[in-house]
């Protein structure tokens, strides 16, 4: 951040995060909505976008006409869920990422993610991805519910709660042709992933196909999230988790840093991880599944790996251009003089890598400072704001375009890996991680050339 300037502050605050699509989970009967509030909420959402959308032609969308056609439906909405569907339909007309309505209350957000009751948030302790027409378990968290139930990476998810493979296939079919394949994969995995989260203590029935082709059914009791719950601004509480590991390959020591979201609560652990891995022969930054977060954190953390003043990208609003300036980090958190990490840096991405994560990965890639491994990222990389609407919901709306070094644009195309290493069922069943394996091999090779 250049100084504590307003716009720079605004840039730092820009929530470059995407929201996973909610599952169609049961929810309590919603309260009736006052028609005046419904209309005010719709108008507020429309006006916010009208005032801030960076392209004054709205990329050819007749924005006033969109309002005129949907406003009567908003007026007739009698519940918040109904109103959200109308506003979402309006926002979808723009065809851009980062236009979402986030339910106002944390409990409501949680219920939208699959739970029907209040309590500490929990999950099944497994990650999933949509690969070759199937939802695969790509990671099982040691000690989590899935681990305890014997579920292993590479297994195929046939059902998670009400989210069955047939429903996923149906949704995929409807989406195909309207959005690109990565967005389809993002939505499919996001929907199943949401069904695997809820309130700690909830039970989620899952049905899977194991490595031998056998059907396995389990009742997973969701366990409390392992990370720290953190709030930022109008966003609902979210889990923040930073993981750090050290691998050894061909006599080299390789640090691995993975984290699930760019929120300030992660900063101390992220800074500490770089400090502790400063002597490593290379660092792998695992951004797979990381949907973004606070935009200003990307250039801030990039300063640990870049020893010159540079920019990760430019945020272009209607009137302004704000650079994501990298400040080389030459002092650590303890106040000691250090140098930014100078060894090889590999970044792992997949179709669930979005927003701030794409700015970070794509920016360092374009600057020639990092090599990207894995799958092409989500392609949702727009800085956004999150004002509260009259009904208490939060409107996530992009306010700027984002252009990377050399003019590269990640919105849509995503960050394309230098070394594609997509995940496969065979690799997962064999206990391999193609992207991480390729990144480690590259770091070893880089060191042998030194």
């Amino acid at each position, binding site marked *: 951040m250049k100084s504590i300037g*307003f*716009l720079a502050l605004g840039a730092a605050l820009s929530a470059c995060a995407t929201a996973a699509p909610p599952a169609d989970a049961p929810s309590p009967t919603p309260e009736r909505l006052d028609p005046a509030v419904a209309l005010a909420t719709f108008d507020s959402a429309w006006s*916010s976008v009208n005032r801030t959308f960076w392209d004054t032609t709205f990329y050819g969308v007749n924005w006033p006409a969109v309002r005129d056609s949907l406003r009567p439906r908003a007026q007739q909405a009698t519940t918040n869920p109904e109103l959200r569907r109308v506003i979402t339909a309006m926002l979808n007309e723009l065809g851009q990422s980062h236009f979402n309505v986030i339910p106002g209350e944390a409990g409501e957000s949680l219920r939208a993610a699959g739970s029907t009751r209040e309590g500490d948030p929990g999950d099944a302790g497994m990650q999933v991805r949509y690969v070759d027409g199937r939802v695969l378990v790509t990671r099982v968290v040691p000690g989590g519910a899935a681990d305890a139930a014997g579920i292993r990476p590479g297994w195929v998810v046939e059902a998670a709660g009400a989210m069955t493979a047939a429903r996923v296939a149906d949704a995929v079919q409807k989406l195909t042709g309207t959005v690109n394949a990565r967005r389809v994969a993002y939505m499919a995995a996001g929907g199943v992933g949401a069904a695997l989260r809820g309130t700690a203590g909830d039970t989620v029935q899952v049905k899977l196909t194991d490595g031998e082709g056998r059907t396995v059914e389990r009742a997973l009791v969701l366990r409390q999230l392992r990370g720290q719950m953190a709030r930022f601004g109008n966003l609902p509480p979210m889990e923040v988790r930073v993981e750090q590991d050290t691998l050894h390959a061909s006599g080299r020591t390789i640090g691995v840093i993975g984290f699930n979201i760019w929120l300030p609560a992660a900063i101390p652990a992220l800074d500490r991880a770089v400090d502790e891995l400063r002597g490593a022969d290379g660092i792998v930054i695992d951004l797979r599944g990381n949907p973004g977060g606070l935009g200003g954190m990307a250039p801030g953390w990039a*300063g640990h790996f870049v020893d010159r003043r540079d920019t990760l990208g430019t945020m272009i609003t209607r*009137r302004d251009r704000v650079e994501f300036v990298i400040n080389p980090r030459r002092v650590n958190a303890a106040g000691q003089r250090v140098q930014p990490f100078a060894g090889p840096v590999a970044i792992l991405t997949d179709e669930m890598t979005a927003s701030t994560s794409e700015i970070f990965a794509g920016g360092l890639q374009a600057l020639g400072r990092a090599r990207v491994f894995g799958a092409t990222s989500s392609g949702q990389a727009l800085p956004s704001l999150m004002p509260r609407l009259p009904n208490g919901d939060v409107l996530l709306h992009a306010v700027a375009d984002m252009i990377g070094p050399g003019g590269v644009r990640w919105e849509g195309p995503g960050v394309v890996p230098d070394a594609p290493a997509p995940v496969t069922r065979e690799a997962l069943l064999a206990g391999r991680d193609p992207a991480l394996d390729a990144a480690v091999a590259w770091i070893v090779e880089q060191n042998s050339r030194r």
Partner: protein
Amino acid sequence: MSFRTSPLRALALAGAALTVAAAPAQAQTLPTAEQVVARYVAAIGGEQAITAQQFRRVQIEMSMPAAGVTMTGEMLQARPNKALMNIEFPGIGSMRQGYDGQVAWSLNPVQGAKILGGKELADVLRQFDFEANLRFSHLFRSMETVGRGEMNGEKCVNVRMVTEGGDEVLNCFADDDGLLVGAVVKTSTEAGQTESTITFHDYREFGGLKMPTRTSMSAGGQQMEMVVKSMSTDPIDASVFELPAEIKALRQ
């Protein structure tokens, strides 16, 4: 006086205001920039009141509704240009910027520690000048009256001021009392090119000087409101302005 849309700028601008029974503006002819500025200085309290102050401690509250964030902050200043600004950002922590008379710096958890140079340094020196509201002619390369206008519902005289670095400020001085109503600021730095609109409200007297207690800023589709909670001119210990350990380490 600074020209960027920072809270610092708003504070600097706000930190000067004396209501003097200013002469009514001439309806037909435009006053010179020097005349407008002289009237403003008189309006906020006069040169003597400005030069009488040795210290300033201003406590503020800022909010950015579009982000759902409310911050508290404090700006400390001592003659001639020592300054420390600290904003406590919920969820992030302390965001600081300062100048000890020799080194300008910034320090925050997101970007880390940084010593400011070049245009950034020049900007900060203007922001931190204790007499920023008095020394327009020293702080701007040029200033000229460019017409009349209206801002925030008040008729005003527009004075265009340009810094050595080429940044432009269109200051709007009220016809009726000479106070600063608002400004449109265009800047270009390594952090980008920005245009912002600032309006000042609710002038009140603190330590013999009038300053706006509410400032609204708009830029990039975002709004920010800043409210002065208190201001004092009591002495401030010099140690407050010493460089933080992180900045000292950077200088090694």
